């Protein structure tokens, strides 16, 4: 079980969190202006890297806030967490 450092509450057990998939997939400014393919990319296409991945988590059994984390999908190491609206941190 991961120990996830909520940016609001500190380190808590993974069981308190819900996973929210890839981060920084913004709702398009003007969906009507998109082609079907562009819209489908927004709806259905997500990255699936082996390595560092920016992803969303919700501290659903705690402060109920959404935040972002940089997690290595191969090792489960969480390199950074940051609040919604903050830029993605640069990690080595």
């Amino acid at each position: 079980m991961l120990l996830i450092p909520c940016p609001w509450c500190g380190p808590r057990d993974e069981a308190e969190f819900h996973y929210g998939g890839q981060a920084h997939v913004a709702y398009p400014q003007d969906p009507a202006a998109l082609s079907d393919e562009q819209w489908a990319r927004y709806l259905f296409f997500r990255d699936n890297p082996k390595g560092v991945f920016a992803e969303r988590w919700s501290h659903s059994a705690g402060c109920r806030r959404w935040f972002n984390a940089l997690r290595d999908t191969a090792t489960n190491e969480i390199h950074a967490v940051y609040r919604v609206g903050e830029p993605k941190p640069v990690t080595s």
Partner: protein
Amino acid sequence: MRRESGGRVDRSRVLRFTFDGREYTGHPGDTLASALLANGVRRVAASVKLGRPRGVFSAGSEEPNALVQVETPFPEPMLTATTVELYDGLAARGLAGRGRLASEPDPARYDAVHAHCDVLVVGAGPAGLAAARAAAATGARVILADEQPEPGGGLLGTAETVDGTPGAEWAAATAAALEELPDVRVLRRTTVFGYYDDNYLVAVERRTNHLGAQAPAHVARERIWRIRARRVVLATGAHERPIAFAGNDLPGVMPAGAARTYLHRYGVLPGRRAVVFTANDSAYAAALDLADAGVDVAAIVDVRQAPGSCATRARERGIEVLTGHVVRQAHGDGQVDGVVAGTDGGDVLEERPIDADLLLVSGGWSPVVHLFSQSGGSLRYDEELGAMLPGRSRQAVEVAGAARGVFTLEACLADGAGAGERAVSGTGPAPVEPSPPAGVPYWLVPAADYSAHFVDLQRDVTVADVRRATGAGLRSVEHVKRYTTAGTAHDQGKTSGLLTTAVMAHLLGVPVADLGVTTFRAPYLPVSFAALAGRDRGELHDPVRVTALHEWHVANGALFENVGQWKRPWYYPRPGEDMEAAVLRECRAAREQVAAMDASTLGKIDVIGPDAGEFLDRLYTNLMSTLKVGAIRYGVMCRADGMVFDDGTVIRLAEDHFLVTTTTGNAAAVLDWMEEWLQTEWPSLRVYCTSVTEQWATVALVGPRSREVLARLAPGLPVGAAEFPFMTWREAEVAGLPARVCRISFSGELAYEINVTSWDGLRLWEAIMAEGVTPYGTETMHVLRAEKGYPIVGQDTDGTVTPHDLGMSWVVSKKKPDFVGKRSFGRADTARPDRKQLVGLLPEDPAFLLPEGTHLVAPETVGPGRRLPEPPVPMLGHVTSSYRSAALGRTFALALVKAGQSRYGERLYAPVGDTLVPVTVTSHVLYDPEGARRDG
């Protein structure tokens, strides 16, 4: 047989037990295995596939052979005799590889503890004790867990001393001193079986298993420890490895170290005349100890040509040492009665039969790296040791002692102390150099016939089986494991895993290091589901939610339906009524008179803030910001893919205050959905969302007479159709209680939803019941709504259904520039004319009730013969809801059918069992399509 003295058993007390129906005795301190050996029981069970006799093999939890079922006090299958502590009254029997779960529930308690510590030390052998002592000396919070009933680990099975004190006494004193410290916890009979991310480890403590019928009922039988540790020291020791030769599975063949443990720990001699077959020095200690205890050691068969000083000492004791020899075969009828030794290599046909009833084997030692590997640690094959050694782990973990190849007692103590010190401060002495016993790794005695060279005793896998696998072209240890099943049994290949690899390497002519071992996965040991479930069983399995009216429902005979965690009244049978009769009566009351339902479980969310209207416009398919204060609107929410996610009503309580209702099962998901959009996409919107589901009790008052009942209960409330129109709400006093009354209908009838605080809910309900109103449950609610064609999200929809598919195009705004899901309605797929659409179905036999989930096929599929073709059968759709209708005087159903809205009047067929039931497609609105009954 039991010796007169020696060992750590208490000979002053006698424990009686039965095995395979025969009575025996043993002593406190025995395991079932040691007691069986003390009684001369060699054969414990038959093997799983071949039915070969098998006996006690090891002296610990790595046991592959001696599987037993304990019958009392509660039947428990698939235990190993080497880990079952003896108690008075124990009854057990041998198992041929498979157990039988008890058919009755286990009455024992099981629980769980969450713990945190600075240092978790796994294993209380010399290295683990030294590590715990060093860490605890700094004041750190330490947990020391060990699977045995007493500390000492390997020390319990040798005659070694620490600082002049017998090893077991030193271990007991060290553990006792640790327990004196306030921040140290010593867990006995506790196996750490899983090592997960971020130093989260899970252990099982066997608290009362060893007490048999004397176990106090109020103490948990087993306890799961969930431990988060800052650092971990793994001092998990090593397992001695078998060698593959003919007959190596016979009772009487055992690792040399195990025999030594039976001697020193249990005072038991596992045989009278022994042959030792080894490739390293460690087995000599066992040979000499057993000889000292009176065992006739007939010969030491050493693979090595020049074994060194240990051979000299053995010869000085008068023991014959055959160097450069191997044991070609162990033979005997049901147990070992002799071995055939020969020169290594096999081409020289010099053979030497030796009589013996005990064959001690040492192919080398494998450090127990299971937990280290589970931590994400890498392993590397060490050529000298012939075993996998821990490499690097990304977690904060140290390995100490034999688990990293350090074998001498002095070195283990130093290595453990260093690891304990480093675990606290991050600095300390470097790990000591590995010190394996002098020897060579040795795996396989060459032969022409490999059909009795066992690699996995528990799965009955032989070298011949492995050769079949490599002969079939398999080159990966993972593939060979699955092909042969080697390593997949109860013991997960603790003693056979590396041997399987080495045999493969021999057959393929490649280095062992190139093949590696199969992945180590949790759990290290089998753990009972009862322990993992703990207290989360029965009533405590999941929270139960009940409404403020629950007691009334119970007192009035309601049967309940689980909706999510809620208990909802299903129907209220009167004496002599079955479900069908009760529901038809309740439906008639709602359609013809007046009836009431507890609707408190509907999800209710307060949406408050200056931007609340804008927010709801973005989430619902229709406009909400234009709603007037005092009015109510039905709304549908879709996911961004355009599929219906939830529906309900939106009530405008004030300019900046909406109350949103959701389906019962979806309330939490809708609140999450709102929070997600607010926090991640629209943080600039000034809106707060709050669940108020439990703050309100809600009663639906339904039927043509509902207005007169409401008028009597709320004399101050104008209830006329013009004064209190459909889809509006009023503050009022109902039955003397402050209430919010909404004119909403989920049945098509004149209806009101009366909301009061939960505290007042029961009084409101009782006042309504006092008016002679019929209570109805969820089944009637479902029938009434289905007659009107109102879908239930999650029953009539499944995440592939748009509002248009439900015949609700009217609820999708064309004015709004955007809302969640809108863009998806422009996709080619959501515009397909052959999408599945919600329709009504009328079985041609008006008494036939279609089972929900029934598939539907076209007449052309069925053909004139009225038979289904061979699969795959083209399906048009399926039945989502099906009921008997009092109002229609017949059965009916709702269904999702391809291009259903263009099929009204068509006949389809529903395969039910062996028959094809003809049904007619209709509009999904079957009752009062004009909506004439809404105003009463």
